[in-house]
């Protein structure tokens, strides 16, 4: 049972108690705004804002850092590739390779932006159990298919993981030891194929069981959300902050140029 541990979803902090719908919407808008930001001022402000949210969520710092490490290990690749390939003024040479100033600036911006988004998502979205995310999406009138795709994936990922472990065990007890050879690749390919077939069959049976219980293509959600005053305050404050962010992004450069 390790597929989708939700270490951040339980807690009693302010960020945990906010209405999941409010958190989802704010996190979504913030992520888009950050993704399109192209100034350092906006990116840095975003990072600070997301850190404030993280502080409000009072999550175990160590686990958060581990998660950030995973994301930033991908960004490391960008630091290797982007400065060397981005056209611009060379600041550092190594044989035929040259790192450009513009490339470094650009990579720095990407690093700030991605971290701001991830931290905000950890603070606002990871603090909601996956089930509740699905229900909140349903409540926010997201397309039904999307919500149920999420909920079904969540429900059956465990089952598929269990099936995977069973198959792997069955391979191990017959003396399978992975190596760099064709036998290993073939066995893994069989494993993947078998998992796919099993999942397909499973989906078939689940659908049959649903039809037996009168399913006719329509889901009903029993979950109700209650909007509190703090949710209103959170949304209003977020809208203001996001507008400031928008101002920083679009007006700041020209504003600075004028003074």
């Amino acid at each position, binding site marked *: 049972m390790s597929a989708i541990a939700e270490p951040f979803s339980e807690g009693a902090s302010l960020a945990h108690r906010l209405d999941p719908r409010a958190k989802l919407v704010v996190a979504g808008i913030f992520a888009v705004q950050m993704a399109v930001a192209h100034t350092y001022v906006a990116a840095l402000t975003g990072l600070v804002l997301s850190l404030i949210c993280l502080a409000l969520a009072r999550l175990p710092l160590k686990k958060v850092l581990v998660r950030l490490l995973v994301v930033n290990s991908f960004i490391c690749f960008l630091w290797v590739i982007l400065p060397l390939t981005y056209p611009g003024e060379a600041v550092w040479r190594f044989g035929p390779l040259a790192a450009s100033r513009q490339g470094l600036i650009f990579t720095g911006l990407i690093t700030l932006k991605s971290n701001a988004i991830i931290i905000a998502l950890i603070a606002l979205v990871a603090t909601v159990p996956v*089930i509740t995310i*699905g229900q909140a999406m349903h409540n926010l009138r997201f397309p039904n298919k999307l919500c149920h795709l999420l*909920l*079904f994936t*969540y*429900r*059956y990922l*465990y*089952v598929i993981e269990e099936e995977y472990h069973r198959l792997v065990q069955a391979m191990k007890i017959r003396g399978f030891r992975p190596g760099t050879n064709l036998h290993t690749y073939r066995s893994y390919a069989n494993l993947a194929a078998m998992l796919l077939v099993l999942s397909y069959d*499973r989906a078939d*049976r*689940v659908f*049959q*069981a*649903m*039809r*037996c*219980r*009168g*399913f*006719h293509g*329509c889901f*009903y*959600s*029993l*979950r109700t959300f209650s909007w509190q005053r703090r949710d209103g305050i959170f949304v209003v404050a977020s809208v203001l902050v996001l507008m400031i962010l928008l101002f920083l992004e679009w007006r700041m450069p020209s504003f600075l140029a004028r003074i």
Partner: protein
Amino acid sequence: MSEPLIEMYNITFAYPGASRPVFEDFNFQLLPEQHIGLVGPNGCGKTTLLHLIMGLLKPQAGRIVIFGQEVSNERDFVAVRQKVGLLFQNADDQLFCPTVLEDVAFGPLNQGKAPAEAMQIARETMERLGLHGFEDRVTYKLSGGEKKLVSLATVLAMRPQLLLLDEPSTGLDEQTKHRLMHILMDLEIAYMIVSHESDFLSYTTHECLHVHGHCCKPE
């Protein structure tokens, strides 16, 4: 004598690609208040029989009459599924909602009940099966026995007039098995149980039938 709940006449059914049909000219009847056990070796068609009754499989030939109504197309079977409950072999196939309460309420909601009423029915059904306090449990985190009982609750919540159970006792510990036996013995509706466990069947059914290609014969 009262009208049979299920009548099957001259059914022929073969799985695609199979060398010989599971049923050929198969005839079967289930009478009201009957509690029947279906036995037979693996692959003799016990599960297939249940799936034919629910309309999950379509026979290549023959007639099926359920509650006195001939059923042939999907629309007929949609009506059948409102009155006949099927408990699947594997509870993981049956429980797909995040929480137990939602799963038990799924059937009643599909029957057009209002959410409040559906929740009420779900709670009552769970109470009856001794599943009080399970409402907000997450379905995949239940134990095997709990999953089986919750699956039964999801079927019973639809208030079926006939219950079909596919190997309900497989993989259950003695205690859960006894619980399941008592629940079944207290039911006031007809049911058919597919099982390999003769002990379980001797407690819960009046009669055991051996499933053959042409008919079901008493052992």
